[in-house]
């Protein structure tokens, strides 16, 4: 490991970029299609409603719980097992079924009857319709806000072509992460949105480190053979890209495996996002810069800014 990528590799990423483009395009289109047709399994934060999380002293069957809830006509609510020990369950009731006060009372009555002194209420969440709608809107706005802010910053620090090269992978990363959540019906709540925002900020790190190297190399050697220069910059930086993402993945993996149920979806979104983000800084961001440059030059447009 000490010698891992110690000698600068010479992988022809620019040759592989066609594969990268095709693969990424398919993934993005697939994600958009899945999101469009399947939608998200939205969490309570966005749908509104009441959720009660209960821990039983002894493991019980989900069916026993559902049968018990028949007494109060809540047997058709969503009942979810939390963890794997058959002791923690979450009952989720839509806003239509009444206020949290009524539902809390009803559930408590029914549990007292069927499982007297054998349960504990771990958590109760009630989100009203107004808040649910606001949080949905705020989530979308904040993702857009992060992208715009990053675009502005990168455009300020680098040339415009780099800014485009930086922002396209962000859409790519966000869409694919959300696509995977949609495809596997993993619940999307506020924490997942937070994770996606974090991924947007973090996955740019890799991109920027490569761009920084490209910028530095341009300063030394000029823009004459840009394709070669970009390829070399990616290669020179490969160890950095892999290691920085790797250490962060260690953390996220630890969170995902040991951090408990409450953080599961959050760390999963980070996990997917960081992997996709690392891939995209190599296979999407840099090729876009190279191709955009080449395209602009071919059009004979005077692209007069030099270096940075």
């Amino acid at each position, binding site marked *: 490991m000490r010698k891992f990528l110690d000698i600068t590799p010479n992988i022809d990423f620019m040759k592989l970029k066609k594969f990268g483009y095709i693969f990424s395009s398919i993934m993005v289109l697939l994600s958009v299609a899945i999101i469009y047709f399947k939608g998200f399994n939205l969490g309570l934060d966005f749908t509104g409603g009441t959720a009660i999380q209960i821990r039983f002293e002894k493991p019980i069957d989900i069916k026993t719980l559902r049968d018990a809830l028949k007494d109060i006509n809540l047997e058709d609510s969503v009942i979810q097992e939390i963890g794997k020990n058959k002791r923690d369950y979450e009952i989720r009731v839509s806003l239509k079924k009444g206020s949290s006060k009524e539902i809390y009372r009803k559930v408590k009555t029914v549990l007292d009857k069927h499982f007297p002194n054998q349960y504990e209420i771990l*958590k*109760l969440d009630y989100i009203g319709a107004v808040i649910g709608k606001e949080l949905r809107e705020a989530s979308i706005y904040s993702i857009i*806000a992060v992208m715009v802010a990053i675009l502005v910053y990168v455009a300020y620090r680098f040339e415009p072509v780099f800014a485009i090269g930086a922002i396209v992978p962000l859409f790519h990363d966000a869409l694919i992460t959300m696509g995977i959540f949609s495809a596997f019906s993993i619940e999307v709540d506020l924490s997942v949105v937070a994770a996606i925002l974090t991924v947007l900020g973090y996955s*740019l790190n890799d991109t920027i480190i490569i761009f920084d190297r490209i910028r530095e190399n341009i300063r030394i050697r000029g823009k004459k053979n840009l394709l070669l220069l970009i390829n070399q910059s990616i290669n020179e930086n490969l160890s*950095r890209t892999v290691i920085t993402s790797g*250490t962060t993945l260690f953390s996220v993996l630890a969170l995902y495996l040991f951090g*408990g149920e409450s953080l599961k979806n959050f760390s999963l979104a980070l996990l997917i996002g960081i992997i996709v983000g690392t891939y995209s800084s190599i296979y999407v961001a840099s090729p876009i810069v190279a191709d955009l440059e080449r395209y602009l030059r071919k059009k004979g447009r005077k692209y007069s800014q030099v270096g940075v």
Partner: protein
Amino acid sequence: MSLKKDVKIKLLVAFTIIVVSIYLALTKPIKLGLDLQGGISIVLEVDIDTVLENNYKQLGKDIEELLKDKEIDVLDIKVDKKRLIISILDNSKLEEAKKLIFSKFGRIVNVETDKDYLLISYKKEYLENLKKDIVNRTIEVLRRRIDEFGTLNPNIAKLGDKRIIVELPGVVNPDRAKAIIGKTAQLEILEVVDYAMSKEELLAKYPDGLPKGTKIIEGIPKKYGKQSVKEWFLVKDTPIITGDDLKDAQVRLDQYGNPAVDFELKSNSAEKFGEATARLINKRMAIVLDNKVISAPVVRSRISNAGQITGDFTPEEASDLALVLRAGALPAPVKILEERLIGPTLGKDSIQKTLNAGIVALTLVGIFMIFRYAISGFISIIALLINGLLLWATLVSFDITLTLPGIAGIILNIGMSVDANVIIFERIREELKKGKTLRVSLEEGFKRAWDAILDAQITTLIAAFVLFQFGTGPLKGFAATLSIGTITSIFTAMFITKLLLDIIVGDKKSMKYAI
């Protein structure tokens, strides 16, 4: 080992920062979020519109009187939450009416005429002040109520312009919390004119419309055996006394041994109440709480300074009612928008689990860094620990609440904050490969990595900043630890790691396992 002067100064600076941080971390306790210590958090919205409508109603009455004095007859007053629409008998006096209203209320309202109507609406500044005032008064009353309830360390804060968040740590019964927080507790004692078992029955008694100055209020259902009965009351508009007249309220038992609330009146209110009850002997009076009659006893004798409210109360309900009556009514009704209750077990669970995750993350990252970068790797782990210390010290000194996502942010930081070191170390290795000496490579590495580190961390900060703006409580904690950790990691990577490497490497041209 002799150290250069600038290294000595830097060492002193680093030492001071570390000692201060340790001191802060050990002496100030961290503020734990409700998701870690358990408790209930409720977001309320103050119903300003209801207050506005009432204010407009009152303003309408005042204006009617004002115009009447000057012999301008008002035909009709329409009220909504946005304005008053007044029509008068003689339209030629419209301008005169406008002037009159303006001279008396011009400070707070705008008056316009539209063909046959006078349009009156509150001025913007007045509305803003009213809103602020109502929200602030609501917070005050809530604070009094919660203090009386005896919850330790509650947090009551404004959220936006008409919302309030109430956080009660510890073990809380959500029903009682809501009864205490959500109840407007507008108490009124009104004279009963008539009553019936249904609204229709009551209305049927007055085919020509209700007598002037009266209104219909429903009672709360009372249980007689298995049957539930609800009465409807026709009451006088103006209350005999209101909650404002109370001096004290306490839980007592009524004559049948059921929980009830005894109240005591302020002295001048007692006089008023005495007069009214003397007049109402053998008649009923309605005790109205938040527009519902909770009981309507028959007055047996003159009552002046004290009274009793009975109802089908449980002991807890009675003591909560006494509490809200003592603390005073909310200036406006509130609506519960969001409620989150976390039991104490879940919080402990979360702390334990995230702690484990943190240890695993630290071990994995530590092993990797030492394995890859040897001495430098070891130094980066020291820097990482110092980073954690600085992060913690910042949290406690700014009283930032640590939440479950906040801990996740710290763990994420373990992996992210070594990034800066990785960027530097890889650069140093690259410089070494070019044949430069260790000393020179070190300087080059730190210098050249700076741009990349700055650019890379700023984008993370941008994301954290946006998250801080939009996130709700617990997620704000994540944004906080993520951004603070990012900033401190730039410092530890550029300053602490550099300093330690300078001390160990010194002027050496090469060193085994340095990096």
